[in-house]
């Protein structure tokens, strides 16, 4: 069975500072990895995804993530955050093959401080 761990439930960071949101996963087979963002009172939307190939993935709004197979991690980074990045961020994993069953992490609340 697959699982996802987001180590930080909340991450406060000052505006224009860099940020890293951590995500580790566990699976017995190869996986696809995703980061979603949820703004207040809205549904989730995709930031970026890793399917294969280059381990550095670029997404929307200046975010990027790096897949590290040996450490089973998929950390999300942004070099300079804005107030508008304040939101809940979810890491997710789905396994290769079969129908998609996406498992989400518990989320990290990014709080950007002016």
């Amino acid at each position: 069975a697959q699982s996802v761990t987001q180590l930080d439930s909340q991450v406060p960071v000052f505006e224009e500072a860099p940020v890293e949101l951590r995500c580790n996963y566990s699976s017995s087979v190869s996986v696809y990895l995703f980061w979603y963002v949820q703004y207040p009172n809205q549904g989730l939307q995709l930031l970026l995804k890793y399917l294969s190939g280059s381990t550095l993935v670029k997404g929307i709004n200046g975010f990027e993530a790096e897949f590290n197979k040996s450490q089973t991690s998929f950390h999300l980074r942004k070099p300079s955050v804005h107030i508008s990045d304040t939101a809940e961020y979810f890491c997710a994993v789905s396994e290769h093959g079969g129908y998609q069953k996406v498992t989400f992490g518990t989320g990290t609340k990014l709080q950007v401080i002016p």
Partner: protein
Amino acid sequence: DTAVSQTPKYLVTQMGNDKSIKCEQNLGHDTMYWYKQDSKKFLKIMFSYNNKELIINETVPNRFSPKSPDKAHLNLHINSLELGDSAVYFCASSQGTGETEAFFGQGTRLTVV
């Protein structure tokens, strides 16, 4: 234009009542889902349908019954509502294979009083 739409957006009801949440997607996807997000933002899959067939049914009380009249619709009916059912319910859809992302609706905030 909305890709995944669900109604209602808010639902307040008394314990013991029966209620339904409707979901429709216009993306042509063949897989649809219901997720429950609790007060701590934890997001857990409840059901998944592929081409109107149930393929994922997590440990969910029998009071919850999904219905998919066609592959563009997936409704959720809840019988005998309990206080613990209060949560935000999200409908989502995807093309069904593992590498495609899910598109989410705006959520239905269910409050049971």
